[in-house]
């Protein structure tokens, strides 16, 4: 085991995964994998049985709604700390008062 429920964020994350699993009728593992897939990243599944593999494989057909993804993201959000917090708080000044009108690049910055 690599992560356990050692803090409130992890517990809230698991709670949200379980809630969405319950709502959608998919397994919690499928919700977790579909969440990773929705991020554009490549999940590496690690089944120990053929039954677990079948469950994992079915996750490619799970379509999470933007509302569900937002809930998962919110529940798992971590505090980034300095300098991200002060930069975020300075958004209006950095954007000349028009920061909300600027379409920012989706590409990672160097």
């Amino acid at each position, binding site marked *: 085991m690599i*992560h356990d429920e050692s803090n409130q964020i992890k517990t809230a994350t698991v709670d949200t995964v*379980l809630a969405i699993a319950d709502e959608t009728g998919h397994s919690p*593992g499928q919700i977790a994998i579909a969440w990773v897939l929705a991020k554009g990243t*490549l999940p*590496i*599944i690690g089944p120990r049985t053929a039954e677990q593999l079948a469950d994992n*494989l079915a996750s490619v057909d799970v379509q999470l709604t933007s509302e569900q993804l937002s809930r998962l993201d919110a529940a798992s959000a971590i505090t980034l700390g300095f300098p991200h917090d002060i930069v975020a708080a300075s958004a209006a000044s950095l954007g000349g008062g028009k920061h909300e009108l600027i379409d920012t690049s989706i590409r990672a910055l160097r």
Partner: protein
Amino acid sequence: MRYRIFGNTGLRVSTLALGTGNFGNGWGYGADKEEALNIYTRYREAGGNFIDTADQYQFGQSESMLSDFIASERDDIVLATKFSLGDSPEAGLQRTGNSRKSLINSLEASLKRLKTDHIDLLWVHMPDGVTPIDHIAKALDDLIRSGKILYAGLSDFPAWRVATAATLAELRGWSSVSAELVTVRRRFADRQISQRGIWTGTRFGRGDT
């Protein structure tokens, strides 16, 4: 199963990679060879082509089992393995960590166990806290030039070290690290649900991996 391009490599890999840390019983738990073959075969039948192992997984047994499974279709799969944690509890100082010597020792042992002459993607499994990233990146570049590995990745490294490796590679004309892997296994067992593990790559620079 659909396919995605792996980072900025052009390599086509299935949406789900198959982690094989449960192939074998060297850790005291896992799938026996019959069950492992069953998992492998069903994954392949579903269209999966991206197999992930490590020298450490079940202390070499995962790689050894895979060698039989992949033998007839080696070129059709993308084979990833890792080094740094050692292939046995007795691995000692020269087959663990991130040094070039550990890298060469571990890679040669993995090639023998996997019965192949190259690894498609070699991960540095975890940072050892002492080997500088420029040493690591150069050693990986040398192996790519030699043809023993095709791509390299950093697993569970801090983002700034991945960024440093990528920047050095770009400036010095080395083959860049192609991928970053982050371990995010979550356990549901305590919540009356069977344990599930997922590993993901995260976004870095030019590619999502």
